[in-house]
């Protein structure tokens, strides 16, 4: 394992230090592993708190800022944060208007965020939660509550954050998060493993000619290991899974191609080209798009495609200005 780190057990600590130092115009520290916008709490605004394991930047802390989240909690690499930093972030962003938790559906995150929610409610804060589960490959549609949250988190954070920025109520913010999540689907593909720094060895092994379809964002094996193929074929398989899972017909959509960490932007654009072509062929109007790294898995090579079925409100919200630590748009 070769990484630009010191002691692997210090990596998250040092990363948080660097992150805060590099983004001090947007965020402040509110605990050892928790941050909030410098302007938090914002009078009358519902606070959005996101979080999860480290190793997924820009998710989660990278999305704190105007138009997305208000606070975030950092976990160890690929491990949900404990309740404490979540409580710290919640306390820091709560203006009295309430706080919404948004995170991916993993057992650890559910346990820890629920505990934080309980504690914060006991302290008198109005906290609600929407657990995100966009990953088509992780369970059949009739067990959607077992699906995990991956690259589509980006869109739900973005739509919900834009709504909260308009000073919507907690009910409204909760509702749109639920709606955005229900209309978001993602499928990923992995070409290589990643290495958890404090472990030091790749999590799994793929042969030189193998890829994993349906891969998550932690290096967990996907649903199917197969031979690598021309990317157009791979994208077709991914889009088939997405389009077969939700009725997008005739909709406006948001389309994103997310790099898992080790795949160059050049390849992501090649993926986008084909995904867009398939949208066009299916009569979907791509109104919003994003190509780049949104929810990563350390240095894993691979990509995921997310497709959101938009309605007018979601589409309009995506036009708003966003200025977070790692995602900005004038």
């Amino acid at each position, binding site marked *: 394992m070769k990484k630009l780190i010191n002691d692997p057990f210090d990596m998250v600590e040092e990363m948080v230090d660097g992150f805060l130092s590099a983004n001090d115009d947007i965020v402040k520290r509110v605990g050892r592993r928790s941050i909030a916008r410098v302007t938090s709490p914002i009078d009358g605004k519902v606070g959005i708190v996101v979080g999860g394991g480290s190793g997924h930047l820009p998710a989660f802390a990278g999305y704190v800022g105007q138009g997305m989240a208000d606070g975030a909690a950092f976990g160890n690499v690929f491990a949900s944060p404990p309740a404490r930093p979540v409580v710290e972030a919640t306390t820091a962003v709560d203006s009295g208007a309430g706080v919404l938790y948004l995170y991916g559906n993993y057992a*650890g995150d559910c346990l820890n965020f629920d505990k934080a929610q309980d504690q914060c409610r006991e302290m008198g804060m109005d906290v609600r939660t929407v657990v995100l589960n966009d990953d088509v490959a992780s369970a059949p549609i009739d067990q959607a509550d077992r699906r995990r949250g991956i690259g589509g988190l980006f869109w739900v954070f973005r739509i919900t954050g834009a709504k909260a920025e308009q000073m919507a109520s907690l009910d409204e913010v909760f509702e749109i998060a639920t709606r955005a999540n229900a209309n978001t689907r993602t499928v990923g593909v992995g070409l290589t493993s990643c290495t958890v720094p404090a472990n030091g060895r790749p999590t*799994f092994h793929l042969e030189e000619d193998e890829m994993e379809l349906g891969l998550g964002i*932690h290096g967990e094996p996907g649903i199917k290991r197969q031979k690598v193929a021309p990317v157009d074929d791979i994208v077709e398989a991914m889009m088939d899974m997405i389009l077969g899972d939700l009725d997008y017909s005739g909709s406006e959509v948001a389309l994103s191609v997310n790099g898992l960490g080790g795949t160059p932007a050049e390849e992501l654009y090649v993926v986008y080209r084909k995904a867009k072509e398939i949208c066009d062929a299916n009569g979907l109007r791509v109104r919003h798009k994003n190509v780049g790294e949104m929810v990563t898995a350390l240095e894993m090579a691979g990509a995921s495609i997310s497709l959101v079925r938009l309605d007018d409100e979601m589409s309009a919200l995506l036009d708003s200005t966003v200025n977070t630590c790692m995602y900005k748009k004038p």
Partner: protein
Amino acid sequence: MPTLTGDSVRLLLEQVAIDVESNKDFLCDLDGEVGDGDHGVSMTIGMRAVRRAMDDLPPDPSVEQAFQAASDAYAIEVGATIGPLYEVAFAAAAEACSGKADVSSVSDWVQIYQAMFDAIQQLGGAELGDKTLLDSFHPAIEKLASLEGEDLVSSLEQAAVTARGAAEATKDLKPMKGRASRLADRAVGHQDAGATSLAIILESVAAFAANVRS
């Protein structure tokens, strides 16, 4: 018969921490086969925090204090699934020892283990057979309970041996909870990481007790 006072439990937990960290890579490899490859790291982070917490205990701590400090360490440093599970487990152990000057009989340890087990099951909601640490813990506790009144050291050893065997036997289980559950049939044949670290902890307890006697 070794008498484990609060101060002995402090040392015991430091011993456990060393044994867990020594198996970091092995535990990560097991987790990597079907999970996300971090179990050894999470347990090491937790156990390092436990060791720092033991250092910070007041002189002559109670058994309850020692276990509660371990619970707090897991609560603050670990996260993941395993963090809250061991947090409640150690807290339950502390409660089970409330008011006790030492834990020296088989029935003391059955009580501790059972309290830990119950807390984990309550929080995590897993059933036996779901391929979790419950699957190595449960048969070990049954074994220990069957030895009540017998020699502590040999009883803890037999419980640990049972746990190790049961951890190995998780290979045949199809996981229903946690990350690995998404893999369904692909997980069959792989030994559960959490069941394995639990067995390592039980072995460590037995070995520590054995050393106190000699």
